[in-house]
């Protein structure tokens, strides 16, 4: 497998790379981000059933938005990969809503049409920083099996039946495990609040 997060020497540095892009429009840092995250984003787009050329273009679009929105990235609230995931997700939604027709360069501002609140105030930012810590603490306490089921449920086309096959457990177990993982996470988040 080519360079994944673990194999990269600066595993912890993606936040710094984004910060460098934000602070001094650092093109070398951007190139590193691109080399790491564009192929992952393309893979994510392919998973949601898009043809390869579209997946490639949407991955480019995602990284372009990483460059443009770098100053909005707040390492206290989101991890770099979670932040890039949300950008990729919104790019895909936007492309989907446009029926994948027309120039991809004309993507509307997906974030503005996605988030419950498009302009969080200062108090909200403090609250989300705390939420970010809570979230990381809660996720760290989930079992590997629970995390795995949650991750797999992210793929629309992966019906629970497919997950059952992948994990080699009965279908009923997948469903109850997913439910348990979610309620466990809710409990943990409540605990840390």
């Amino acid at each position: 497998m080519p360079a994944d997060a673990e194999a990269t020497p600066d595993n912890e540095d993606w936040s710094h790379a984004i910060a460098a892009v934000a602070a001094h429009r650092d093109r070398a840092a951007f190139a590193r981000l691109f080399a790491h995250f564009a192929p992952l984003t393309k893979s994510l787009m392919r998973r949601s059933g898009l043809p390869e050329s579209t997946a490639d273009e949407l991955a480019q679009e995602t990284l372009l938005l990483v460059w443009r929105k770098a100053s909005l990235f707040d390492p206290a609230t989101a991890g770099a990969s979670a932040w890039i995931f949300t950008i990729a997700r919104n790019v895909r939604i936007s492309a989907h809503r446009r029926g994948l027709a027309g120039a991809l360069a004309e993507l509307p501002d997906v974030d503005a049409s996605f988030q419950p609140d498009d302009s969080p105030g200062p108090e909200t930012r403090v609250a989300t920083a705390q939420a970010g810590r809570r979230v990381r603490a809660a996720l760290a306490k989930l079992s590997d099996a629970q995390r795995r089921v949650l991750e797999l449920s992210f793929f629309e086309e992966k019906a629970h039946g497919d997950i059952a096959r992948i994990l080699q457990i009965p279908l009923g177990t997948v469903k109850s495990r997913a439910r348990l993982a979610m309620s466990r996470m809710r409990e943990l988040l409540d605990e840390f609040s």
Partner: protein
Amino acid sequence: MTIRHHPPADLLTSYAAGTLDLGDHIAVATHLSACPRCQAMAAALEHVGGAVLTGLPPMPMTDGALARVTARLDEPDRHSDHGNKDRAHPGHQDLGRTNRAPLDGVPGLPGFMRRYMAAPWIWVAPGVRMRPIQLPAASDSRVFLLQSRPRTKMLEHTHTGTELTCVLTGGFRHAAGDFGPGDFDWGDAEVRHDVTVAPSETCLCLVAMRGEVRLRGFWGALIQPFIRL
């Protein structure tokens, strides 16, 4: 104001994954803008999404992809002003150009919906009226505001599809409990008995509905043709 009713787990997961239909997405986002608890859940699920992303097998980009993106880095960001364009999806729930008004000023809606347009109020039943919302893209659901006078009793009814509801103001009660501002309710083909609007205040809800509402019983059969839901 305590929120007692939250969206089910699979809806929140699909919301975070970005795989919800637009109408469902709007209903969940409306709840989220009132519910810090579910906001934390959604944030947690976005972290799961980050883990999903980094765990995928990387797919090589086409030759020159980085160069093409680098060439665009200095382009002005055309979308940073949020545009406020009326990007109605042609043909979908097209409410026509006349009499539409922005949703600005409706309490409890998520920020992005302020730019959506809504039709005038339509009479549905005594004490009940609805206001269809024009969506910027296709959706399997119809999204509308539903307003009911205090103490309105809804007739026993069932749905042919799913119905997601988020209370904006006022509230109602049915077998599953009391619902107030921010509370999220969902129903499928099951029958609802005895939905009663709270006595003190007009109830305003955002509803995303697939299929139709079917009223049951003798009176329901009689008035069904006149009910526009």
